[in-house]
């Protein structure tokens, strides 16, 4: 009955089209009304829990990460990154597709959301590939798949959300995303190499050393942004929030004072749009704090664990079932919402089965990223259809094979937890 109210009602309200933040709130209040009586709903506690959900220093990294990504997109830095990546790997067969992946990997060090990559850098990548003779489906699909690297490599909005909800170190989790992010880029480039060979995709002329140096000089200052952000976190010099602040300040200096591609008025507009994105994400987190508090009080994670362990308490069976569940959720609900809803239930389950919540954070986000490429509600697919004129159905068909390399990385990460946990364990001596 308790599980039915908290989980069942939430699912029904989501299907009825109620915004996720209110679906979480309504199911929480309904639970309180049923368990305590309709005239004894503790409204002050409800308000307190929501407020606590917004009040954390670690959480302040989120708006900063969103701001850096948006500012970098608007400042024309993406053109410089694309030029540098082209000079590096453009001469391979299917070169621009490799460039696409490499540019996304570099941009991932500045942006924490897949849609920022898909809609910003993605527009430049698709245009360049189309002009070089690549077909629209392939260009759009490579762009969609490579944008998934963004939320895996630090800075990452989903990883910060998970870390706060699961109670793991934000810095450790962000560092844990480095190897999986690079692995994902390598897997996508391997798949691109296979397709390029099979379909005899175009080859760009090799850039000489001078061209490479010129493009590097052009992109150098922009390339320092991920160095500051990731380097600050990696060395333990900064917390994620402080690294976000330094990178934000650096990005403002770069865009407004050095490149002069962003006016003060445009900067204000970037702040305004960051505010909206940040408010939407953090408001869900705030109400999810109330919801997850009730889930724990109602011992729902224990019931779920008992239910699953009735079939098997083997870690591999449990993690496989959880991944299947997340893949299903990813098809219908955005990664941000799923993390808010599922983390408080799944983390105790994974812990009880002998898993590591840090490792599971990476597994969860990589799995949910696959959902960004699947219909009917793949956010990345929507972002790509907005920047190109490709019909949604055609994009869905053409992007499907790209799920294979991403899924292969997921299998690797599940099988070898050290790929995610070794670096933070070593660097931060967890």
């Amino acid at each position, binding site marked *: 009955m308790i599980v039915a109210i908290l989980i069942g009602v939430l699912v029904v309200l989501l299907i009825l089209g109620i915004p996720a933040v209110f679906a979480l709130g309504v199911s929480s209040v309904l639970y309180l009304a049923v368990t305590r009586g309709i005239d004894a709903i503790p409204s002050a506690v409800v308000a307190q829990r929501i407020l606590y959900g917004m*009040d954390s220093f670690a959480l302040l990294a989120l708006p900063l990460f969103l701001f850096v990504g948006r500012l970098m997109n608007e400042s024309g830095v993406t053109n410089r990154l694309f030029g540098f990546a082209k000079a590096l790997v453009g001469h391979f067969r299917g070169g621009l597709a490799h460039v696409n992946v490499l540019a996304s990997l570099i941009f991932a060090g500045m942006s924490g959301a897949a849609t920022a990559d898909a809609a910003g850098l993605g527009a430049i990548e698709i245009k360049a590939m189309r002009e070089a003779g690549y077909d629209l489906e392939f260009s759009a699909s490579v762009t969609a798949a490579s944008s998934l690297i963004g939320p895996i490599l630090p800075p990452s909005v989903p990883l910060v959300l998970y870390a706060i909800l699961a109670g793991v170190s934000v810095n450790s989790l962000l560092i844990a995303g480095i190897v999986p992010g690079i692995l994902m880029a390598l897997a996508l480039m391997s798949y691109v190499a296979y397709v390029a060979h099979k379909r005899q995709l175009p080859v760009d002329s090799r850039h000489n050393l001078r061209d490479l140096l010129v493009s590097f000089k052009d992109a150098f200052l922009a390339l320092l942004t991920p160095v500051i952000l990731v380097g600050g976190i990696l060395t333990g010099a900064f917390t994620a929030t402080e690294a976000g602040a330094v990178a934000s300040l650096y990005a403002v200096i770069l865009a407004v004072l050095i490149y002069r591609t962003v006016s003060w008025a445009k900067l204000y507009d970037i702040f305004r749009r960051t505010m909206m994105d940040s408010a939407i994400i953090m408001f869900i987190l705030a109400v999810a704090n109330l919801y997850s508090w009730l889930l724990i009080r109602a011992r729902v994670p224990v019931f779920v664990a008992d239910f699953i362990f009735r079939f098997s308490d083997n870690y591999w069976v449990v993690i496989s079932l959880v991944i299947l569940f997340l893949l299903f959720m990813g098809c219908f609900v955005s990664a941000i919402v799923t993390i808010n809803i599922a983390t408080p239930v799944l983390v105790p389950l994974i812990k009880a089965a002998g898993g590591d919540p840090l490792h599971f954070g990476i597994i969860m986000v990589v799995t949910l990223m696959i959902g960004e490429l699947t219909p009917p509600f793949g956010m990345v697919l929507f972002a790509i259809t907005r920047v190109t004129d490709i019909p949604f159905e055609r994009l869905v068909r053409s992007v499907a094979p790209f799920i294979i390399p991403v899924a292969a990385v997921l299998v690797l990460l599940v099988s070898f937890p050290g790929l995610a946990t070794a670096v933070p364990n070593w660097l931060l001596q967890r």
Partner: protein
Amino acid sequence: MSKNSSLRPAPLGLLETILEHGATVCLILFFVSVVLQVLFRYVLEAPLTWSEEAARYLNLWSVALGAALAVARREHLRVNVIDRLLAGGPRLLYTSVHCFGLVVTLVFSIIVFIGAVYMTIDRWTVSLTVLPVRQGFIYLALAVSFSIIITSLAIQLVAVWRTGYRERSRLK
């Protein structure tokens, strides 16, 4: 998931403009606080005592006002499968489902608003650890936010009830 609803946003006019700029200014001040904190701690080696608290609560006000604005503009994330399902369905079903959604959301918002007002009054005499600001001022953000959310939802509810059929036709 979608940010765009099939329904028209609730027009709040000047209030919407004030909300938007208020939340943006809070975010900018938050940004300045965090940057100052890092600069004073690592460059000048004279850590500020107030910057962390200021950053946390400026961000909180920004989120609270921004969230209210997102309700007025119907920009909160939602699963929009119901819009497609009901696009060709009967008028009464369409109107009922949307009214139901708005009513339950309204009930939840009223409960949070009551709690936020209670906490604002209760904590009005308690000061924050560092900043010379009352704790009640933090809860006030929630009270202000939910009062605007309630207004927006009420306007939307009336609009759906009155124009449900026309809105449904727009979807076809």
